[in-house]
Each structure stands twice: as structure tokens, then as C-alpha cells.
């Protein structure tokens, strides 16, 4: 078949397929703060365990089911936030949102996550990329009761 009419290569970048096939930080953490989220429209799920100590994300793990975008986004996100201070993580969340929702260029602190910029050319898939970030945000809120 000839080239598709949409920039599929921008969407399914090598690093995304890689994280989808081999998710990093997959699993659960005993005694961690547990948060989860579903995208009811498409059924994608993310369950996340976060350990916060000394204003730092000491550990993080996730499980989930869904499309390559939602799952690779979660996997890359865990890599990028693990060991970071809450301030750094909040900044990353803000930068990721800006890239995905407001069309901003990827900020330097996003690392591999930059690969998800291509998703913005597929507007219905943006919510897939955002799911794990919304769950993370909830995990950082003080009101969340630890598991």
C-alpha cells in the first residue's frame, strides 16, 4: 500500500512502540499511595502506585490496559518522574500538558516524552496520552488517602 494520508510515523515513533511492548516500571508497590483512572470513552485504564518521601517521587509503578499511546505514555512518564522532586514533577506535568493540549514545543525536561508530540496531529488520541498524567496528578494531591 502507498503512504498513508496521515503522518502515522509521527504517531507511532519507535520509542513509543518500544515502551508499549516493554513497559518500564510495570507492577505494584506495597504500601504505596494508590491511584487509578479510566478513560470511560475508550476503556483505557491506568492503576498507579506512588511513593513520595522528602518531597520526592521515590518510587512509582503502574499497571494498565489500553492502546499503545496510553500505555507508552505511562511507561515513559514513570521513567521521567522517578527520583524527581515534587517541584520538578509538577513542572514536567505542566510542560507535558502544554505540549499536548496547547501545541507548545516540547520543553527540555520532557526527555523521551517528546516522542508523544506527534499525537497532537491525531486529536482524538490526545486523551490517551493524557490519562496517566491525570492519574499522576491525583497521586500528588495531599488529599489522596494512602492505600
Amino acid at each position: 500500500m502507498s503512504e498513508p494520508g496521515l503522518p502515522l510515523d509521527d504517531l507511532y515513533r519507535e520509542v513509543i512502540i518500544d515502551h508499549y511492548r516493554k513497559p518500564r516500571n510495570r507492577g505494584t508497590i506495597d504500601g504505596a499511595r494508590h491511584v487509578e483512572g479510566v478513560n470511560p470513552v475508550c476503556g483505557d485504564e491506568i492503576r498507579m502506585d506512588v511513593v513520595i518521601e522528602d518531597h520526592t517521587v521515590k518510587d512509582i509503578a503502574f499497571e494498565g490496559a489500553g492502546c499503545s499511546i496510553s500505555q507508552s505514555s505511562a511507561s515513559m512518564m514513570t521513567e521521567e518522574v522517578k527520583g524527581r522532586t515534587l517541584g520538578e514533577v509538577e513542572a514536567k506535568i505542566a510542560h507535558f500538558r502544554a505540549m499536548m493540549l496547547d501545541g507548545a514545543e516540547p520543553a527540555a525536561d520532557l526527555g523521551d516524552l517528546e516522542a508523544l508530540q506527534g499525537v497532537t496531529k491525531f486529536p482524538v488520541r490526545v486523551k490517551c496520552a493524557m490519562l496517566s498524567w491525570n492519574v499522576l496528578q491525583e497521586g500528588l494531591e495531599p488529599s489522596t488517602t494512602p492505600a
Partner: protein
Amino acid sequence: MTLLETRLAARAPIDPRRLRADFPILDQDVNGYPLVYLDNAATTQKPRQVIDALVHYYENDNANIHRGIHTLAQRATAAYEASRVKAAAHIGAQPQEIVFTRNATEAINLVARAWGDANIREGDEIVLTAMEHHSNIVPWQLLALRKGAVLRYANVTDTGYLDFDHLRSLIGPRTKLVSVAHMSNVLGVINPVADIAEAARAAGAFLLVDGAQGAPHLPVDVESLGCDFYAFSAHKMLGPTGVGVLWGREGLLATMDPFLGGGEMISLVHEDMSTWADLPHKFEAGTPNIADVIAFGAALDYLRDLGMPAVRAHEMAITAVAIDALSAIPGLHVHGPKAVEDRGGAVSFAVDGIHPHDMSTILDSYGVAIRAGHHCAQLLMRRLGVPATNRASFYIYNDTADVDRLTAAIREAIKVFA
């Protein structure tokens, strides 16, 4: 009916290439490719004749109906009521038994409220199946919650059939209603409605058939099905959005309280109480969707001219081709029955390692429109053990070239994830 028998019953075979000329939307490129529309179980496209009927109505006859004496009101009323006669004919019913609603969903809700609230009591049971669309689940959940009734779900077999023995075992003295899809929008399987009707009747229970996927694809005769209610949507059978049909046995509809109150459905209004109009107007409160009901008449004419046996024969033929072609793809698994005698043209499938949303995005980039998701059948998704399925669904204007485009695009998707 076997494919051969169905073909013989069909007046003339359907020629999808010729029909496509009636569907202006199909003649477009999507993402650089000619559109292949395979999302017909969600909604079908509309022939020129239906669009023209809308335009003709608004350019010539538009008026509010039933109460007007002036010429436009007379024309609009006559055209609206003519569609009721056609809808009745489509399913072998009487016009006064046809209630126009917004969609199949509202038709089912109407029964849940207007029949259910008066007839369901604490401990009563309603039997559904695990393959039902949310529209045939949630109205009964809400009713069960109001009344303290209990819902029971008949199993789906591993091969994608209704487990009829299980269903029958669920029907007992407390069963007041059985409500099943005529055809599953996910598995494509056609349920044995006449047998279910017999089982329901033997237990003194009523039977509602969710015909959202029945009326568009199968010859339907409510008398021989033996059901008590039959619900369907115009938009899934060439008609406009915004029109549904509830058929109910006249005697049953007559005993039911109204659902919505307002203009059109009353006879006399007093301060404290009112009296109701005759059937079917009792159930059509407020200004109806006049234009779309009239345009739905044009869709029913179109299907009548093709003949439902011919529609069925065409779908069996293309579904057979599609299932063969899909099954030949390594790592692809078709859900639901393989025998086309037992199923319609909604073909769900899974591809190893590729989530349906990714598949749908990739297919779309090649101009192929399928649906990916839970198809409003979350219970069935859990039963199948999948979060979602890919679904290609066929209608009268689809042909084997569309199947070729579908399978070629799936092979491209497999390469992306290889």
C-alpha cells in the same frame, strides 16, 4: 435460511456498485484515499432519496402537524402518517401500533417507564443476555432500582452464541420480562427470537426485542417472531438521525400509561387531570421529529424496493467473504459465529499485539472507517476478556473491494507494530 434459500427469496440481487451512486457521501477521499465506510452498525449512510425527502419537505410542506387546518399542515400530517404505515409494513405490524421515538434507546426506555413502572414489583425478574447493548441494559437497571426487581443475564457461549439453555433456565415464575437483541452489534449473532418468545410466553413473561440491528438487516415479521415489543432506529437503516420506532401489541400499548406528557398526546386537559389521545398519539408528546419521520419513509421505500431478502442475501455473501479474508491474516481472531446463516454483517475481531484504537487510527489513515471500542457492550467485553474490539460492519453499498481495502490496511497496521 441458507444463503442459497435467501438468495432465491430475494427478488433481484443487490449490486453495491450501482447503489453507491445513490450515496453521495461515499464518493469522497479521506486522508488521501477513497473512503471505505465499514461502520454501518453504528450508523448507515443515507441515499440521495432520503436527503431529497428532507429538502423537499422543508422547501415545500413544512408545518406543525395534526392540529392545523391550513394546506401545509395537511400535507405535513399526511406525509408523517404515511411513514407510520411504511414503518408498520416493514415489520408486519399495524400503523396504530407504531410509536415514533428519538431512537431505539428511547423506545426501550419508554417501555421501561410506561410498562415497567406499572407492572414490575419487588422481587420480579427481568432476563437479559450478556451480549446486550447498554441501551437494553441501563433502562432495566434503572427500573430494577426503582422497583427492587432483579436482573438476570443469560450467558454467551465461547463460540459467540447465546446460551439458549441457560436463558431458558433463567426464565421462571418471577420473570416478568425478557429483553434480548435480535442481532448482536458486536458478535453479529442472530438470536433465536421465536424460541425465546415461546419460553417467555410459557412463563407468562413479556418479550421485548431490541431490533436496532434486526430491522436494518433482516426480514422482520413481529407476528412470527412472537414478541410483544420491538424497538429500532431509523439511522441504522438508511434513515435520518433522530427517529426511533417502538412497536407494541395494540392491546398492550392500550393498557399502558403515557410516558411523556404534553401537546399532541392529550385528549382533554383539566387543572388536575387529563385524558389521553388514542394510540399511537398517546405516546408522542410535543412536536414530533416531523421532517425526519417523513424522510425515514423514503428510507423504508428504498429498502422495500431492494427487498429485505435481497439485503439479507447480500450481507450474508459479503460477510462470508470478509470472515474468510480476515481469518487468513496471521494473528487475527474473529469474534462470534463464523457461519453466515447465524449472523449478520457486524464483524468484530482482535489482532495480536495491536489495541483496537491503534488499529482504528491506522485504518483511518488509509481511508478505512471501522469502529474500535466497547460498542456500548461492556458486559460482553468482560465476557470476551477484552477491553475493546475492532468492528467492521457491512451494508448494502459495501462490496468485496471494500474487504480488500480493509485487509490491506490491517496488514499495514501489523507492519507498524511488527
